[in-house]
């Protein structure tokens, strides 16, 4: 159910490692399901340096405002502008068009410490 090509956090973010020390960050299908319809995203500016578990931005559903955290150290290389214009993509395609930022200067070794898809699935089953 959760793509195996990436890693997950207990805060329901995912990271997909790309080439050249870059990585995409988004939130999981479980997270968007819990939030309900997403209507607004506040994402950091390009060039922002983020430390692991630091606040990456805010996501607002019809009913609530939640913080999103960065799963890795990195620098914001690109923000998904399409998502800012169409926040509903988080609900429709959380693992694809719903990506939020592309980080650069990430440490691949750090990624190894995050949950695999299987571990995340296990973690979710304990929540329910």
């Amino acid at each position, binding site marked *: 159910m959760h793509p195996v090509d990436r890693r997950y956090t207990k805060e329901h973010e995912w990271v997909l490692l790309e080439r050249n020390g870059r990585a995409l960050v988004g939130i999981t299908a479980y997270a968007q399901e819990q939030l*309900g*319809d997403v*209507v*607004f995203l506040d994402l950091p500016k390009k060039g922002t340096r983020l430390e692991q578990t630091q606040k990456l931005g805010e996501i*607002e559903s*019809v*009913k609530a*405002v939640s913080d999103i955290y960065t799963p890795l150290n990195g620098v914001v290389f690109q923000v998904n502008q399409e998502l*800012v214009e169409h926040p*509903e993509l988080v*609900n429709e395609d959380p693992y694809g068009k719903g990506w939020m930022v592309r980080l650069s200067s990430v440490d691949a070794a750090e990624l190894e410490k995050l949950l695999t898809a299987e571990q995340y699935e296990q973690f979710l089953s304990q929540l329910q």
Partner: protein
Amino acid sequence: MLNRTPLYEAHVSLHGRMVPFAGWEMPLQFHGILAEARAVRTSSGLFDVSHMGRIWLTGPEAAALLDWVTTANVPALAVNVARYTLICTDEGGILDDGIIYRLGQDEYLLICNAANRDSVWRWLVQWRDERFTKVKLVDRTTEVAMIAFQGPGTLQAMERLAPGLAERLRPFRSAQAQVAGISAHVGRTGYTGEDGFEMMPAAGDAPALWRHLLETGAVPCGLGSRDVLRLEAGLLLHGSDMDKHTNPFEAGLDRFVFMDKESVCSGTLRQVIQREVHRKLTGFQMVERGVPRHGYPIVRDGTTVGHVTSGGYSPTLDSYIGLGYVSSELTPPGTSFAVDIRGKMVKAKAVALPFYSRRRN
């Protein structure tokens, strides 16, 4: 322990996300708040509103009691007419808003908000005991259910389930009727800004009526979409947009206040209307992106000039809208101000209400 409506099992079986609301366990959403709101605007949606209070007033003084505690011209209501009204305190504050249905010669039904059912009941009892002792008051909230069937598609569906009824029922008219063979009091009323019907069957018949209505293709809707729809239609929510510290004129509800009568609040309201109203409810639209929410300050030139009372994303207008109280001079449409969204000043402008009104034939 939360109350459950007769439709609780139906909601659970439809995977409704159940939440506590004013002492009741109600569905917040089924498939998604925005999808449900869109269904009501384009086809039809079905809401369980059985949590709302239903109080019957009977006897020769029933009209007089209602006339005393509300702002409506109650004696002027004909049988089978419904009217939106405000229940005011002696200080002219809004205790609740609701709908009066005149069901018979000396029989009235008052629909009030779930959160205010106790205070409305106590207010009615107090005045019954003091001045209108012949009125019999009965709270039938749990005996009778209430289902709102809303949207442009409801007309055709009702024609199949209750032939001829829609034609007889103009807006804010009601009738005792058979819908899919089930007895219910039906009003051409709602809280969504769309055409529609509100039906009150006996509690035991509610699940069957709900099923019949779903079979017409209606989308089950929760409280989330109800809130989005009422905001788009510029309809106020008691407890957010008005309360007992707000008077009807500040809330922009002048047209629901019949001044030519004596009531518990008429003296105060006459004084209020003499004075200038200093703050007024305004609709506003965000000029920059941002979600205005209840309690956020409204700011102009660095000074807080009011607060947001309701706000959110409007799927119908694809913009962010809200209601709030500001100094009266800031209400003309186009007036610009900002909403302080968690410390960030986001531009907005006053707009006329309602935000959305349906096309009428």
